[in-house]
């Protein structure tokens, strides 16, 4: 079966739950929804347990003999380590407020994609094995257990976990609406940790994680290639602006270290954002003597470990501080990325303290970034907003006049950080046509791109388009109403995922990073008159005399 068309997909959404109760509806692992199993080599490379060949649609998953015991112990351990999990397992009242907040539920109608049921998949086992109520019910027999919402962990239950935990993008939208703040993302994170204990990951997470570990970035770009790519971009920039930019790498003694997701080095339209960074840094260097270096060792801001386990997250994240220390920089500037910033904002400092760094101060405006006093890491939009506010950037927003732009808040920066105004301020400064999407799908209520948390694979395209529907639908709305043709965002996964989702749902709209728009507008000292934007598309008024 090939992937459904948008019309078919919409028709397939069935909001009526099935007749059978969810415990009596066995899991059916569907093509187009599930992701391929992890490549054993990648699992082995990062030293995670039970690397092996296995196939989700086969009956036998080649599980270790004592897998139940491993899960049981792992569960116990996590209950003892994370209050979040313990409380969230106990207090859900099943009010259903979270149910229709999940983009995967909205786009698929599959009731097990309601956050509350996703959590119940684990909670039912928790009740059975870890609560007094479960023990008491179990005493009366299996049927009593079921009435009480408890069940034993069986192979089918395990498969259900795997299938649905990799249909959650850890976006936390459900958590905004839950009266107790129950965060199904937190439960998914924990569930995936358990699955990893018996070697059940997906390849689109395991292999990037292994790559990050080895080469520093998820695409496995080796250092020389990384430099080559940026040299390429420098050529392109030279063609467009007549200015040669010259980024430096792994340079000791630089004032600031720059870390951004490697996706931007590799695939359009992220590449244009990467060019944007290079132009911005060049501009600042020429005008104000800005001193920044890239790193090939810490060449990935994104953290695929976060989709695997807290430990793997830490193993990858640690490189940032390690590299900052080695190079002797004062602080770190972070590029546009979603979960990278969730990790930096809410996890990274526990890996510190980075006492070898200094409290970040913008060398250009003198602004102290007090909100990053401890982590010593500043977001590029915080940095740029400050520059623009102080009038330090020479901007010509008319160079974005061919674009009607809307803005997608990425889940992590909005609900795991609260970075809402900085990007908007920048957008309004660099382009004249900016339109918001409707209120219930932006800011803290923003919808996921549909492919976050490692679900951006090729084989699960139907799932991704289901999950992408709510976001795309809102874009479609502003496209129809305001003729919007450009969707901006500050996340590398968004730039990859939204592109596909737009092609599918709203083909008229393209995707861009924020820094690309800034660079379009940014007037470099001594540049030639620009005829095209960074994508080599003619600027307004320049269409005629474009020779290339």
């Amino acid at each position: 079966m090939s992937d459904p068309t948008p019309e078919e997909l919409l028709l397939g959404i069935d909001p009526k739950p099935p007749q059978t109760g969810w415990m009596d509806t066995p899991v059916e692992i569907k093509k187009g929804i599930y992701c391929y199993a992890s490549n054993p080599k990648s699992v082995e490379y990062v030293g995670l347990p039970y690397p092996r060949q296995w196939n989700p649609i086969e009956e036998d998953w080649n599980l270790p003999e004592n897998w139940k015991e491993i899960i049981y112990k792992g569960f116990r351990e996590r209950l003892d380590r994370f209050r979040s999990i313990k409380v969230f397992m106990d207090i859900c009242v099943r009010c259903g407020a979270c149910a229709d907040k999940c983009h995967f539920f909205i786009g698929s109608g599959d009731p097990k994609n309601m956050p509350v049921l996703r959590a119940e998949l684990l909670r039912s086992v928790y009740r059975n094995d870890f609560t007094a109520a479960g023990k008491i019910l179990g005493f009366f027999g299996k049927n009593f257990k079921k009435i009480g919402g408890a069940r034993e962990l069986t192979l089918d239950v395990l498969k259900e976990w795997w299938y649905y935990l990799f249909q959650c993008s850890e976006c936390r939208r459900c958590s905004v609406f839950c009266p107790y703040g129950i965060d199904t993302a937190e439960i998914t994170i924990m569930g995936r940790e358990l699955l990893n204990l018996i070697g059940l990951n997906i390849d689109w997470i395991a292999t990037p994680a292994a790559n990050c570990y080895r080469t520093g970035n998820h695409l496995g770009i080796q250092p020389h290639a990384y430099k080559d790519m940026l040299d390429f971009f420098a050529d392109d920039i030279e063609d467009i602006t007549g200015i040669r930019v010259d980024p430096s790498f792994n340079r000791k003694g630089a004032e600031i270290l720059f870390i951004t997701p490697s996706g931007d080095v590799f695939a359009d339209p992220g590449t244009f954002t990467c060019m944007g960074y290079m132009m911005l840094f060049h501009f600042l260097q020429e005008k104000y003597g800005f001193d920044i270096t890239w790193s090939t060792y810490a060449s990935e801001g994104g953290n695929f470990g976060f989709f695997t386990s807290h430990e793997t997250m830490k193993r990858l994240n640690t490189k940032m501080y390690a590299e900052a220390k080695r190079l002797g920089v004062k602080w770190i500037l972070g590029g546009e990325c979603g979960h990278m910033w969730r990790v930096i904002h809410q996890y990274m400092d526990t890996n510190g303290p980075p006492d070898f760094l200094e409290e970040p101060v913008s060398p250009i405006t003198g602004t102290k970034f007090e909100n990053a006093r401890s982590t010593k890491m500043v977001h590029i939009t915080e940095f740029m907003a400050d520059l623009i506010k102080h009038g330090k950037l020479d901007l010509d927003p008319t160079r974005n006049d061919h674009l009607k732009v809307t803005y997608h808040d990425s889940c992590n920066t909005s609900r795991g950080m609260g970075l809402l105004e900085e990007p908007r301020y920048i957008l309004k400064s660099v382009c004249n046509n900016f339109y918001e999407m409707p209120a219930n799908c932006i800011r803290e209520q923003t919808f996921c791109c549909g492919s976050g948390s490692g679900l951006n694979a090729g084989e699960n395209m139907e799932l991704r388009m289901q999950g992408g529907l709510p976001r795309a639908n809102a874009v479609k709305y502003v496209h129809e109403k305001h003729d919007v043709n450009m969707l901006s965002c500050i996340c590398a996964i968004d730039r990859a995922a939204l592109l596909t989702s737009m092609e599918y749902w709203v083909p008229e709209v393209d995707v861009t990073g924020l820094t690309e728009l800034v660079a379009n507008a940014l007037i470099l000292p001594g540049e030639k008159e620009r005829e095209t934007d960074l994508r080599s598309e003619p600027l307004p008024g320049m269409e005629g005399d474009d020779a290339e």
Partner: protein
Amino acid sequence: MNISYMYSLIAVMVLFLLAYLGAQVTVGKVFLGFIIPFLAAITFIVGFIYRVVDWARSPVPFCIPTTCGQQKSLPWIKSAPIENPSTTGGVIVRMFLEIVFFRSLFRNTKQKLKEGDKLSYEWEIWLWVGALAFHWAFFTVVFRHLRFFLEPVPACIQIVENLDGFLQIALPGLLLSGVVLLAAVTFLFLRRIFIPQVRYISLASDFFPLFLIMGIAFTGILMRYFTKVDIVGIKDFAMGLVTFHFHIPEGVGGLFYVHLFFVSILLAYFPFSKLMHLGGIFMSPTRNLTTNSRVKRHINPWNYPVKVHSYEAYEDEFREKMVEVGLPVEKMIEPEPPKEDAPPEEEAEPPEEAEPPEKEAELPEESEEKE
């Protein structure tokens, strides 16, 4: 079709019969009026404390508040001090709004697919209204009941009761809370039955407390307005309970024992069930933490060292390629190892200087294919 509510209904009816019939004999009265409430109260108190302490025993390793508004960053950007609280004061206000006014539930929306391809999200306030009415009514009722256990009755209880009875001008003797409680709990029940998604997720343990509370409210209202139970006798009896001077009250019917029995069951059931959300909401890490995780270091008490791919290992693997494109390295490549015996490392240093003039990248196209 989810019929789990039947089990709960049957369970509550059985409990009703047990109490009603039990109250006909003296030994039943002793059990229902004294032993069971006493045991239930103990179970509640011990159970509740145990659960909360048990939660508290697990640490909060990471600072994971759900941020629902603008962060505090640059001074000229207006932050959301409550929805994204960077101070303890902000957290306190946030928690207060959550606990007293169900702030998050207030956001609730209902999603629909219109005209086949348009998603809409409408504000859905009824769950919030119903939930708030239910909890506030429940709270008021519980609070008013303290009058039975305290002598003299404190003024605040009297005030609440007077407020509660403000409709008495029209309907003498009517207290609002009991009626609202019954109405709200019925609404919450009907909602569970009629909204397909909510019915699908409902367990018997979701219906059980609803029926039980319905039963409590219903028997209470019956006693107050219809069977006109002897209040003085009950007060006597209640005072006896708290001062451990049990005596069987005169002139109270089976209904009273049912009421008391239901309350006892609710108390005993409480610590084992989702009703523990009363305690849990105070401890939810996505709500009760400050969002200043980049300003102040959050300590993970079980943090442990992990294996990291060090820069040295990285450079060892890629050194030649790095040198080739002019990336600085820590250790230079050892010149022609076979000829001499290992040259000391000191010579290989100054990484600062190791920047050969910028070479134009050769064959950048191919450099990718290895993996």
